[in-house]
């Protein structure tokens, strides 16, 4: 199955072509991996959008405005790169880490599934917090 990583961003930005939209809709209805990727990108964007707007340092704008030609472009590109790096770093710092999954919950689900197999209940049951020793 070919995944659609390259189109997912355009899809979320509303910049995908109608063909691409149809392709993403059809593919994500069948592909768990791409559905999760789409949700992850969407969540991350929402987190970035929720960050406060950064003010450029005083003096940087006048310098850029007064500098001629090529120097002005270099300054702007540098400022943009620095702002982007700052944004990514800030996002990494301020985006809360995903909440951990507790293995107790997962074990309970695995136990429930195992109990569907005939006769397995007494063979698989474990008691958390029982009289356990090493």
């Amino acid at each position: 199955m070919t995944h659609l990583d390259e189109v997912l961003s355009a899809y979320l930005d509303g910049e995908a072509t109608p063909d691409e939209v149809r392709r993403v809709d059809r593919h994500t209805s069948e592909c768990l991996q791409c559905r999760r990727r789409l949700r992850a990108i969407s969540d991350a964007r929402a987190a970035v959008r929720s960050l406060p707007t950064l003010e450029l340092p005083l003096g940087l704008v006048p310098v850029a405005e007064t500098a001629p030609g090529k120097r002005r472009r270099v300054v702007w590109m540098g400022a943009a790169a620095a702002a982007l790096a700052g944004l990514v770093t800030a996002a990494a710092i301020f985006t809360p880490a995903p909440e951990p999954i507790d293995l107790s919950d997962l074990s309970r689900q695995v136990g429930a599934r195992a109990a569907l197999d005939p006769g397995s209940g007494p063979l698989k049951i474990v008691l958390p917090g029982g009289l356990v020793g090493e």
Partner: protein
Amino acid sequence: MSPITALVLALIMGSSVTADVDGYLERSAEAEFMGEQLISCDTPDGSRSSVFSLAQVEGAAVAWVAGADDTVVRMAPGSNVTVAHGEVEAALIEGTLETDASVYNVGSTDEVEYLGRDAREVTLLREGEERVVLTVDAATDAIVRTVTLDGDGSRYCDRRLLSFTTDLSGVPSVDETIEGVPSQPVEVVPEDLPDEAAGFELVDTYELENGTLSYYSDGFFSAGVVLTSRPISFPEGVDVSQVEGERGRYRRSYQPGSVTLSWQSAGENVAVIGDLPPDLLDAFVAELPAPSTDGFFGRIWQRLFG
């Protein structure tokens, strides 16, 4: 006897032996009993043991510690409910009901006595090797003892009843009217997971909030494999060891009767939860996504995009 007749007879006898393995398990599900159970396991991280009361009533297994704790676990087909300190935690699930015990067949049976009762000791073979010894109560068909073996024939876990009664008056009741929508298996299977690994077949896959849970079984032992973008945390107070395997680093925790392994693989977190003996666990895990460590930028990406 013609070769064709011999072949037909062999096939018939072979299928009846396979059916016997299923038969022992299915008949034991009908038994009703109560007793004290000891689980004792020799694991690579040391011995693990546990004692609790166990009953099987109306097809559900109930475990509790009499008088010492108010924790009760009730496992019925498709549900696993824990009641502790008045709090109820429940998992409801649906799945493929057909069992496939084709990996096992009956090696030998012996008449024995267990807890002063007539019983039958049944040895199960997996690919010709002894892996499980069941002791089945003759009167009730309850499995009163299960010894599972590691690949070298040494004991891995011994689950045995220390007492046995058909008087169920002491079994604690658990509210069976748990509300909730059972998890349903999904058609889509994670690409990273094999359909079969070391004799374990992928039976069902379920979608989690940020991942999947896939259930594997070889007809006796079973394991759930979790793939998730979220970090995986072990419960507090559980001994977790860091293990350096051939393919990378794992976190591992053995509990009486169960084992959990967790690691990172290509930006995802993986966990295996099951009751496999150590050698089968190693062989099974070897066919799952290998551990890998993300670099600095990988960790930032993981933090931002899950």
